[in-house]
């Protein structure tokens, strides 16, 4: 049986209808440009001066001073690449969580990923420092497992209480799980005083990296997560309708929600495992894009990847230079730079659009 509707489609190509959702290319180009500039800043900034020429030579395999080449390839390049992965993932995961939960305050840590990662890392630092499994340091592994366990726990709890009918049940379950994990984490942190400083610095987040190991460790998860969210961008737009309306369009709401939450959690758990909990990126980047450029997820998702990555690389460059030779936790910079920018954006656009 076929639809009997007789809307005729004209064969010649009339002018396209205004207001159709599409990625604005000037903004995409601007995002790409911002990312390139921020990466350049990230590579050029550091205690040892390395000129643009040397960086370009290193990248194209030309003649570079071996000391400089070593600094670039083993310190600065991996750090910038890690910043790109972490920033892009946090921004995209935040956007995805906000879409799935229809909650502007949702961030990638909403369902307890941060609390779980913190607990896992704290336990590893306190009780098994320096251990590695299959050549991988135990701290990121423990953080990854902790983050996954917390979100899975929240999901199971939310499901048992409200049967996933409402996103609110899931959010409340996440709050409860996070509080529980935080209490255990605080207890371990307070009783294991020898490791308190290391735990504290881990929790505040940083991109101090052992090199390419961390990049390679998270790369598969980050790519999988970003790709899964990216292909759901049309469906995330549909989820902004009411529950009955989306369902009546034949869209399997629960499946979409589950896949997107799992993908965003996987990415978040991976980046939290190597970079700690970097606050604020997952909230301000997607919202700034919504306020300045557009609210369709076809716009928000790809641009969050670009601008989130650029923002974090820039914030990391700041974290390395402000109190050099010491380093600030990157969360200090993301909030210090991000909050005033975000307030300015909110004031200059219609607050009603939130």
């Amino acid at each position, binding site marked *: *049986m076929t*639809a009997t*509707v007789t809307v005729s489609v*004209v064969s010649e190509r009339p002018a396209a209808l205004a207001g159709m*959702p599409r990625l604005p290319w000037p903004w995409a180009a601007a995002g790409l440009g911002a990312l390139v500039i921020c990466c350049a800043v990230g590579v050029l900034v550091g205690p040892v001066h390395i000129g643009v020429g040397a960086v370009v030579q290193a990248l194209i395999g030309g003649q570079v001073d071996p000391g400089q080449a070593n600094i670039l390839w083993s310190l600065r390049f991996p750090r910038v690449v890690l910043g790109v992965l972490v920033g892009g993932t946090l921004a995209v995961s935040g956007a995805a969580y906000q879409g799935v939960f229809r909650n502007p305050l949702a961030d990638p840590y909403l369902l307890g990923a941060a609390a779980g990662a913190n607990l896992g890392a704290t336990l590893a630092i306190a009780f098994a420092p320096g251990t590695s499994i299959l050549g991988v340091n135990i701290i990121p592994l423990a953080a990854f497992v902790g983050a996954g366990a917390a979100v899975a726990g929240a999901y199971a709890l939310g499901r048992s209480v409200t049967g996933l009918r409402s996103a609110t049940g899931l959010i409340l379950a996440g709050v409860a799980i996070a509080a529980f994990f935080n209490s255990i984490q605080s207890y371990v942190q307070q009783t294991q005083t020898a490791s308190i400083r290391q735990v504290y610095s881990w929790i505040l987040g940083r991109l101090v990296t052992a090199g390419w190991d961390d990049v390679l460790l998270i790369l598969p998860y980050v790519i999988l997560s970003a790709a899964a969210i990216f292909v759901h961008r049309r469906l995330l737009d549909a989820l*902004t*309708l009411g529950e009955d309306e989306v369902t*009546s*369009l034949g869209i399997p709401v629960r499946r979409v929600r589950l896949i997107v939450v799992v993908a965003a959690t996987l990415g978040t758990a991976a980046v939290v495992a190597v970079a700690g909990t970097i606050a604020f990126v997952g909230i301000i980047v997607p919202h700034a894009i919504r306020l300045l450029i557009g*609210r369709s997820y076809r716009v928000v998702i790809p641009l969050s990847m670009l601008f989130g990555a650029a923002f974090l690389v820039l914030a990391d460059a700041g974290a390395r230079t402000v109190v050099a030779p010491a380093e600030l936790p990157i969360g200090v910079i993301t909030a210090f730079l991000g909050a005033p920018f975000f307030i300015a954006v909110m004031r200059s656009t219609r607050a009603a659009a939130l």
Partner: protein
Amino acid sequence: MSDVVLAGVSVAYDGAPVVWDLDLSVASGEWLALIGPNGAGKTTILRAIARLVPFRGAISIGSRAVTELSSREVARQVAVLVQEPQMPVGMTVSQYVLLGRAPHLGYLGKESARDRGIVREVVRRLSMEELASRPLDRLSGGERQRAAIARALAQQAPVLLIDEPTSSLDVGRQQSVLELIDQLRREQELTVIAAMHELTLAGQYADRLALLVDGRLAAVGPAAEVLTERAITEHYRAQVRVIQMNGSGTAVVPVRS
């Protein structure tokens, strides 16, 4: 054919029965109005037909049981216009209408040029081209209702379920929305099932009325048969006068004694 047949349909929410053993058939191209006091089960019946709520009994559209269809197939047969459609902030009219193409796309599919062409035609048909790039939150109440109708129309489903199409509209806009639905029904041979609380308008636009009381069918038939003073007084606990308006329908007028 897109006739809708309900046989022995019962619906319960959390064990509490809302609709009891309902038999109802709506012919292809017919407009049936579901009337009845608040809580009679009008919305629930619409939700059952669109398979938004589990039910016992059988519902078929064009002789195919809805329970045998995938949810995308149901969405290609039945478009739903809910009472208060969510109008996402910042979404343009075009983008909103484009969502109506979802049942024709694969899970991760992308709208084709054909889908966009259909949206363009629907927007033109409803004379909304000027509003195409306007955000939904900057539309008036009547324009929002037209946008919602456009989204349902873009679904190209032969059956249109409407929950209270005219609530919160003034009398002129009520008429223009109902006229529009009626024109579209004739042009595109749609079967319309609408929950309506305005009894006079229900009688003027629908071919038949089905009066529901406490989840059961109390009467079904043309307006002149269903809209009687006795029935309305009994089931709505209202004092009304029913006036036959010589070819202009049946007016139900509240009176104060």
